[in-house]
């Protein structure tokens, strides 16, 4: 077993390399970021137009509330998404994963570092974008100070849930060559149920129930609503508990899925 010091040293080394590699890719990273910023911007404009035509607000949200929500969502989505599903199939097909399996360390640790490093490097682009959007749309943030204190753990747990779930689903690459179809379906569900197309409050009641029962709302919209003030301290604590349950569930899924997938991978080969 590795000691805490070993882990710290391992993560420091991995993280350093991820940081170096991500700094190499800053140009393509910036192009990715444009897409990431455009998506909430489009929905913000759409819903603001709807709110104005409905006499100033929609489901109790006026354009400045919507601006706060979508700007918070932009940051949360950036901090919690992962690109694992996009790259995993390539790694399996071209033998990179084979090399990773020869190392006395689970391959997910490298992915965690890669994704976290990307998030930090890209804050250089994201923060100015947030400043410009704030200036343009005058968002109204009214967070509960207690809820604000929950924001960091909510982001960490949100990232953990998404990363673990993405990783588990990426294992489909061991079983099928139609990974892209699976990925697209998953991304569409996530887009809808994580509150990116519309704040969950705007969805029909039954769909809100569905969103609450699945992990996606808790990983994206929930931290954003902590920041805007829509979710208070008590609801925030409950939300953290839900996130924690999802982290544990995702951990269970990943260890089950990984064992099965490894058995298949080592049976079939690359």
């Amino acid at each position, binding site marked *: 077993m*590795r000691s805490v010091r*070993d882990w710290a*040293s*391992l993560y*420091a*080394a*991995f993280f*350093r*390399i991820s940081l*170096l*590699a991500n700094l*190499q*890719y800053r140009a393509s990273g910036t192009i990715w970021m444009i897409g990431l910023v455009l998506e909430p911007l489009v929905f913000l404009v759409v819903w603001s137009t709807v709110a104005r035509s409905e006499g100033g607000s929609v489901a109790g949200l006026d354009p400045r509330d919507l601006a706060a929500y979508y700007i918070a969502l932009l940051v949360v989505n950036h901090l919690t998404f992962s690109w694992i599903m996009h790259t995993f199939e390539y790694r399996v097909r*071209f*033998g*990179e994963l*084979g*090399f990773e*399996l*020869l*190392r*006395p*360390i689970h391959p997910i640790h490298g992915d965690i570092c890669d994704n976290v490093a990307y998030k930090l490097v890209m804050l250089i682009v994201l923060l100015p974008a947030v400043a410009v959007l704030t200036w343009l749309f005058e968002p109204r943030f009214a967070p509960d100070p207690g809820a604000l204190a929950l924001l960091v753990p909510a982001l960490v747990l949100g990232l953990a849930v998404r990363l673990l779930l993405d990783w588990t689903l990426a294992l489909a690459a061991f079983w099928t060559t139609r990974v892209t179809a699976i990925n697209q379906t998953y991304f569409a569900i996530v887009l809808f149920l994580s509150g990116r197309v519309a704040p969950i409050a705007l969805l029909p009641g039954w769909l809100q129930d569905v969103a609450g029962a699945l992990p996606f709302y808790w990983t994206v919209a929930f931290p954003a609503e902590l920041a805007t003030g829509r979710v208070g301290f008590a609801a925030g604590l409950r939300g953290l508990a839900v996130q924690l349950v999802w982290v544990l569930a995702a951990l269970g899924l990943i260890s089950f899925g990984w064992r099965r997938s*490894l*058995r298949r991978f*080592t*049976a*079939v*080969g690359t």
Partner: protein
Amino acid sequence: MSEAETVIQVRALSKTYSVPVREPGVRAAVRSLFRRETRPVAAVREIELDVAPGEIVGFLGPNGAGKTTTLKMLAGLLHPSAGEARVLGFVPSERRHDFLRQITLVMGQRNQLVWDIPVADSFERNRAIYRLGPALFRSRLDELVALLELEPLLRKPVRNLSLGERMKCEVAAALLHQPRVLFLDEPTIGLDVTMQRRLRAFIAEYNQRTGATVLLTSHYMADVEALCRRVVVIHHGRILFDGALQDLVQRFSAHKTIVLELGPGEFDLRGYGEVVSQEPGRAALRVPKQATAKLTGRLLAELPVNDLTIADPPIEEVIDRVFSQEAV
């Protein structure tokens, strides 16, 4: 060989892949939507192998013979379909960390270094993965840098290296944790002759210094001749030969080559054997092995021979002969 003396033990090891088959045409494509048909393909069939500590064993075989499949099973990347393998006392397919820390697999056509960052940073990552202390890491790295002449490469991003330079760095990265067992799959593929020679010399030196066991596959006979006293010939998933390189030649070559230095004059040599080459004053004959002595006597008696040498055919030729046989 007793169990304590072997690093690698393989008993009736087999690997069968299940390969999808489909007839061409739309109808077959539609049918395959409902019922996928597969066909078992045996890549490795009941092979037996014992390797002692410090041995360098060369795996020879044409493409698709089962060499890489065997190496992957021994490195723990593939689960055997049947039979048993033990490496350093571990079952490779369990992929225990204590096992993985003591082996390495180098594949000439694949790379594990991080493409966009300097080589030194990839080495640093391996230091953390294999938990090497700073002093130990430093001394091993210095040694590898000296042996492989890596100093000018360390600060270059991997993508800027030539194939040969990259391969040297790959090998260094694969050896930083000082593995006790090395699986080298075509380590010199695509390299120029100088670089091949240097890498070979390095592998020999590493084996001498550390006593590591090496299993190597290669298409280049020169690799095998230079490094391996023992060769294992594998073909269609079966082991055809396991023994000393010299014995391989003895066993599989049915011919010898007789080279003659002749006095002046024109001679018809066709009655003695197959004429491989003939020019004034010099000729080479291919003769059946068991007839060599008799023919030599006749040549010496009947022709003005100034000099005569009997040689084994080149190893390439012998190997080629082995592979062209279905079973031996």
